């Protein structure tokens, strides 16, 4: 009984629960546990900023210290979500200013953050420590200046992949001399040059600095001095990795690297001059994470570098690595867990490098711990996929992108159903899957039957009919996020599986066969689903009801379905009048 335990004891017990799922489960036990838990929850993660409102969050959790939130759906990364759709951070920041004076951490992903928001953050919270903005946009370097100037105890400022309007590099100079608390600084997405003196001084007075990711504007000649001031670095992102070839620059750099005994992760490497790569060799044996996704390095130099990194666990690289480089990777890096191969020439009509399905097969054969893959290539076969599945049943993330989205098995010209079928059948722990290639409804049947732990599925240019979508929605028990583009999926499967949609975070369908009528019906039947019709051609009821909508974004929500920040190209169910969309 709850009465046997004083609140303080329960609170103490709950303090050991860090996972959100555990805390959510605890809060469902009984009313008093719900109450105790909500008062002592300090961290919250909101996967969809529109699933809930600031008021609801604040009312339930009055004592938060850390908020993490995501805004736009994943396909926004590929320009499929029109500008102005939403995901504004300001309403949250403004609401939290009053409610959480002791807030320490804000982490946002794919949200629109303005300079006003940043200024408000910097002035509202006396103990603010961590700001992470992933793939965000809407702010300028002026907003960064506010953060630098006002957050006295700032530990982390991480702007990974954000689009920042870069007015000048002067923002960095706003860190006061008294600021010595920095643990992590990631400015790699910025363009402007910062004052190198200010940067060096900042690094020198930050003894706890573990992560430093520079931007491209920091030249190689400056890198040695910076590293020398922070030999305790664990993660380093270089700036441009090119300079005139001079032995003093080289030895200076090599010396600086050799002093970094804790270095585990490297990134950056814009404009690489391969002759400077050996300057890093002294740290390679300790490196577990290498991000070379901006680096045009020929395969032979890549191989020399990678063969020094026997403890590599994560590699992100461009397809310059080629099959031969992946063979070498498979031979040297037996601890490899994650591989991402990006296309150096994604829009080129012809292959510019010799990277095929064989590279992936080799790595799947040679790396027993490989569990996460993102692979761009130009050809694939069922045989290769089947081999990969047999070699590596421990995949948890498998994302394959064939540049020609409807490419068949290049050997047999058949669909790739069997190949992906093997992946879902053998990899029983698979949580994320992205597919491309010529795919029929059959592959979705396999997915529905086998992919019981699948949480996120991305589909493009695949399938034949609604049956495909139905297989997925009815079969994938753990599905949380489904994103679909350019598939002949429509109303029937959607409506037949309406209840399923409430068990998921969201469903995105663009350039499919979903009608406005079905969207209205779905919204009417499912009051806790927000069915957003995102269509830039004007009011959906100006077209025949059977006409397909450009995009439908369906997500569960406990907040109002008429969000106040809706732009004029988004339509949702109007609660007041029946079936009228406004």
């Amino acid at each position: 009984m709850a009465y046997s335990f004083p609140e303080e004891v329960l609170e103490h017990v709950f303090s050991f629960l860090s996972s959100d799922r555990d805390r959510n489960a605890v809060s469902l036990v009984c009313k008093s546990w719900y109450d105790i838990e909500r008062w002592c929850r300090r961290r919250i993660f909101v996967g969809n900023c529109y699933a809930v409102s600031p008021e609801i969050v604040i009312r339930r959790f009055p004592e938060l210290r850390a908020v993490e939130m995501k805004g736009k759906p994943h396909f926004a990364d590929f320009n499929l979500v029109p500008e102005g759709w939403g995901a504004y951070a300001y309403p949250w920041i403004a609401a939290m200013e009053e409610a959480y004076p002791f807030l320490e951490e804000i982490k946002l992903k794919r949200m629109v953050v303005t300079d006003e928001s940043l200024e408000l953050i910097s002035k509202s919270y006396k103990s603010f420590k961590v700001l992470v903005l992933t793939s965000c946009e809407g702010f300028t370097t002026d907003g960064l200046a506010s953060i630098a100037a006002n957050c006295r105890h700032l530990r982390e400022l991480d702007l990974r992949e954000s689009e920042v309007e870069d007015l000048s590099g002067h923002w960095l100079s706003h860190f006061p001399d008294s600021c010595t608390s920095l643990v992590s600084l990631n400015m790699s997405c910025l363009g402007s040059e910062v004052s190198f003196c200010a940067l060096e001084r900042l690094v020198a007075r930050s003894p706890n600095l573990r992560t430093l990711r520079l931007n491209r504007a920091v030249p190689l000649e400056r890198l040695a001095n910076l590293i020398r001031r922070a030999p305790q670095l664990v993660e380093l992102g270089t700036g441009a990795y090119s300079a005139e070839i001079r032995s003093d620059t080289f030895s200076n750099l090599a010396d600086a690297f050799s002093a970094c005994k804790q270095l585990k992760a490297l990134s950056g490497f814009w404009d690489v001059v391969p002759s400077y790569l050996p300057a890093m060799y002294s740290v390679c044996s300790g490196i577990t994470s290498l991000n070379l996704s901006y680096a045009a390095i020929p395969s032979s130099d890549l191989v020399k570098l990678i063969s020094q990194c026997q403890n590599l666990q994560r590699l992100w690289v461009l397809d310059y690595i080629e099959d031969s480089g992946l063979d070498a990777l498979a031979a040297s890096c037996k601890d490899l867990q994650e591989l991402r191969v990006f296309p150096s020439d994604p829009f080129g009509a012809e292959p510019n490098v010799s990277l095929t399905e064989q590279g992936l097969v080799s790595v799947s054969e040679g790396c027993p711990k490989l569990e996460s893959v993102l692979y761009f290539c130009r050809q694939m076969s069922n045989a290769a996929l089947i081999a990969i599945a047999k070699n590596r049943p421990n995949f948890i993330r498998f994302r394959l992108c064939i540049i020609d989205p409807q490419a068949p098995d290049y050997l047999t010209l058949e669909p790739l159903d069997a190949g992906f079928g093997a992946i879902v059948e053998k990899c029983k722990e698979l949580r994320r899957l992205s597919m491309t290639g010529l795919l029929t409804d059959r592959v979705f049947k396999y997915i529905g039957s086998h992919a019981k732990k699948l949480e996120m599925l991305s589909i493009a240019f695949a399938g034949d009919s609604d049956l495909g979508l139905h297989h997925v929605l009815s079969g994938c028990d753990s599905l949380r996020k489904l994103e679909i583009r350019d598939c002949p999926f429509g109303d029937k499967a959607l409506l037949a599986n309406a209840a399923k949609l409430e068990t998921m975070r969201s469903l995105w369908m663009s350039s499919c066969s979903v009608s406005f009528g079905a969207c209205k019906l779905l919204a009417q039947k499912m009051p806790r689903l927000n069915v957003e019709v995102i269509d830039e051609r004007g009011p959906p009821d100006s077209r025949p009801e059977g006409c397909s909508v450009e995009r439908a974004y369906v997500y569960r929500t406990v907040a109002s379905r008429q969000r106040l920040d809706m732009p004029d190209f988004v339509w949702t169910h109007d609660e007041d009048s029946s079936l009228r969309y406004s």
Partner: protein
Amino acid sequence: MDNHLQLHLALSTTSTRNLPRNDEKKRKFDESFSDDEMTSNKRTLPLLIWNDNRNMDCGCVDVEEHAVVGWPPVNSRMRKVAEHHRRESTASNYVTVDNGGGGGGGLNSMYVKVEMEGIGIARKINLGIFGSYQALTAALMAMFGKRREMYKLTYRDKEGDWLLAGDVPWERFVRSVRRLKLLKKVW
């Protein structure tokens, strides 16, 4: 319009909006891109590889030509990186492209790697779209941004010998070429 939800899944033949396709029917490659499918199929078809663009003067493909939004799925940062590298590789010197095998069937499988003295990253070029040495050389020079009189075109044939291009008739050359290399002329 139905007022209640029904499990009413039709097989593909009754689907109103989509091109009916039998589950069992294999989709042959050439069928996939036949004209009537292009108009009746809801899916937008790619793209670049099958576009009949014979204009090789620019030596590169404009991003704007790609009509399919958001494909391939690379984010804006990656796209900028790719653009940058494209510009770099046309301007730089030592591009080595290795040809796995020239000749062979069809217009689309005659990719040959092209190496230019001084450039580290290889390029590939589809020999099938050229009809003469002149056309090929013009395209290569445009691709690398160099002047024709500064370089000579050599090739490695299937016997592994390096020869000066231009001596044998074009058709014979195309069948035997394995690799191309542009060497600076030594005065």
